[in-house]
């Protein structure tokens, strides 16, 4: 190992907790979000990639995907399949109202040292066949030093409406970063302004960083990302430049972790929004 590489590794270890997740974006793309009645199904593509909404990297695993019916009770995901670059599944929208489809993932990331050798928790990138199982908090030995842990929680949700929209599925649980939209996500119109509120542990989240990116990246030159933030009341106002699908990602890091020895809590909320022509 050259002195430069050794210095780089030492510098990396100084960063509070290593950010192990890749920078790729996770997303679910429904076939549409507005349905006339209860005679339809929605089909959803789920993938991890950089360009929205193109499949070129990894599929999103369907294990954790849940469906909520308009009354809040759990619904059914059908015909799930996972391919090389995307997963796909169907949901039969047999009740009127707004349905929620999503995942919630909680993990603990970080590192610790045993006899001066640094070990990382969790796994970087997709599962590799034959690789050893990733380390978890339970694997940290009693003699470990420099234990640096961060809690991560990610919610990825989409909303589809059959008939008239309802709001039961937006009821917050009061834990972590949540979406409490003022403008219904299935009523977005190009040229109009939508208002969305975000909550952290049930309270409005001021100064939350939100990134909004339109789909169709391949058919234009710039990324088109907009970086916005919520006001003091946790509310974000967005005006949609054109109709289409948009990816929205809100992130917040604070120190209110509940896992023992975790010093940081990193939360993110992702949704895909459909904007229609006026």
């Amino acid at each position, binding site marked *: 190992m050259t002195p430069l590489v050794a210095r780089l590794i030492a510098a990396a270890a100084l960063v509070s907790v290593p950010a192990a997740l890749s920078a790729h974006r996770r997303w679910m793309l429904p076939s549409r979000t*507005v*349905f*006339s*009645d209860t*005679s*339809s199904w929605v089909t959803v593509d789920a993938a991890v990639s950089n360009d929205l909404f193109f499949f070129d990297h990894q599929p999103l695993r369907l294990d954790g995907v849940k469906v909520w019916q308009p009354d809040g009770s759990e619904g059914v995901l059908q015909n799930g399949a996972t391919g090389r670059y995307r997963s796909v599944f169907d949901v039969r929208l047999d009740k009127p109202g707004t349905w929620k489809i999503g995942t919630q993932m909680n993990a603990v990331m970080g590192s610790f040292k045993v006899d001066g050798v640094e070990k990382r928790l969790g796994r970087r990138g997709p599962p590799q066949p034959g690789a050893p199982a990733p380390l978890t908090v339970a694997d940290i030995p009693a003699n470990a030093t420099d234990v640096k842990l961060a809690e991560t929680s990610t919610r990825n949700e989409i909303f589809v409406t059959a*008939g*008239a929209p309802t709001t039961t599925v937006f009821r917050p649980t009061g834990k972590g970063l949540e979406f409490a939209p003022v403008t219904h996500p299935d*009523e977005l*119109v190009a040229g109009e302004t939508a208002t969305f509120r975000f909550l952290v542990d049930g309270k409005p989240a001021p100064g939350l960083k939100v990134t909004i990116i339109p789909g169709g990246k391949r058919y234009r030159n710039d990324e088109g990302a907009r970086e916005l933030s919520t006001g003091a009341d946790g509310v974000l106002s967005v005006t949609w430049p054109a109709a289409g699908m948009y990816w929205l990602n809100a992130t917040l890091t604070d120190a209110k972790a509940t896992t023992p020895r975790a010093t940081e809590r990193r939360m993110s909320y992702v949704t895909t929004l459909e904007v*229609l*022509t*006026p």
Partner: protein
Amino acid sequence: MRLSAFVLIGGAVAAPAAAGTVTITIPRLSVAEYHRPYVAVWLDPVGGGAPRTLALWYDVKKVGNEPGTKWLSELRAWWRKGGRGLAMPADGISGATRAPGRYSIPLPATLKPGNYVLNVEAARETGGRELVSIPLVVPVRAAAQGAGKTELGAIALSPR
């Protein structure tokens, strides 16, 4: 028997002096695959308040797995503005799709006087979608005109 019953109901609604008449033109289009458009006609009160649907033409005959109502949300502006609250079929309002031609719809006599926007939206299978909006004052004293470019032709408003 059924037909005459409908005519009777239609007659009862139209009997008092109408507040005006809307005439809608569905253009004749020469395309390889032509389907009669879904059309919604509704009034938006300018100061706010519930929109009122005057007419809705859709495929009433299709039922079962993919009923004609499945495509009502393609009339996107009408759907969002209040169309989705209407139960189909809606008496005196909904009916079958119509062939190219001119059709008159009387404005209901029970309309409160005031400023409105008359909206006519058409969506055609394997075709486009168009929305034409014309300001309207009730009671209608002067004739007014509007026109679509693709899916709708001339829209005329007249006092009687």
